[in-house]
C-alpha cells in the first residue's frame, strides 16, 4: 500500500456521483456524466500506473484520452442530428 494507490482510490471514488449522472435522467444529463467519467477514469488509470510501478500501462490512459474525444463528438452529433 503506497500513497499513490490511496490517491488513485480517492480519484476513482468520484465515479459514484458519475454513476448517478449516467444511469438516471435524460440523455443530455447522462452525456455530461459520461464525459466526466472518461476524464476521471483517465486520471485514475495514470495514478494506478504509477502506483503499480508498471510503466507500459501508460498506453491505456493515452488511448482513452484520444478515444474519448472522438466518442464525445460522436455522441454529441448523433444526439443533435439523428435522434
Amino acid at each position, binding site marked *: *500500500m503506497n500513497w499513490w*494507490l490511496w490517491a488513485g*482510490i480517492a480519484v*476513482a471514488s468520484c*465515479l*459514484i456521483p*458519475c*454513476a448517478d449522472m*449516467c*444511469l*438516471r*435522467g*435524460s*440523455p443530455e444529463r*447522462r*452525456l455530461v*456524466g*459520461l464525459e466526466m*467519467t*472518461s476524464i476521471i*477514469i483517465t486520471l*485514475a*488509470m495514470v495514478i*494506478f500506473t504509477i502506483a*503499480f510501478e508498471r510503466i*507500459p*500501462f501508460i*498506453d*491505456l490512459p493515452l*488511448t*482513452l484520452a484520444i*478515444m*474519448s474525444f*472522438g*466518442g464525445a463528438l*460522436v*455522441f454529441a452529433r*448523433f*444526439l443533435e*442530428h*439523428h*435522434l
Partner: protein
Amino acid sequence: MIWFGAILLLLVAISGFAVVCTRDVTSQVIALSFYGLLMALTFFFFQAPDVALSQITVGAVALPLMVMLAISRMKFRKAHMPDSSSGEEHD
C-alpha cells in the same frame, strides 16, 4: 486494496442492472458506454491491461456507436417513409 476492488465489482454489478432496466434506448446507449468504461477500469485494476485496452476501444466507443448507427438509421427510415408503417407484405 482488495476492498477497493470489491467496491469496483459492486459498482459494475449495479450499473449492469441499471443498463438493463433503462427502457429508453437512447439513454441506454450512454449507460452502456459508462458500463464499458467501468469494466475497463476494473480490468485495469485487476492487472489485465490488454483486455482493458480492447474494452476501452470497443466498450467505450465502438459498441455504443453500432447501436446509435442502428437507431439513427431506423429514425431516418421513419422520417423518409411515412407509409412504411403499414407494413409491406414480403415473403
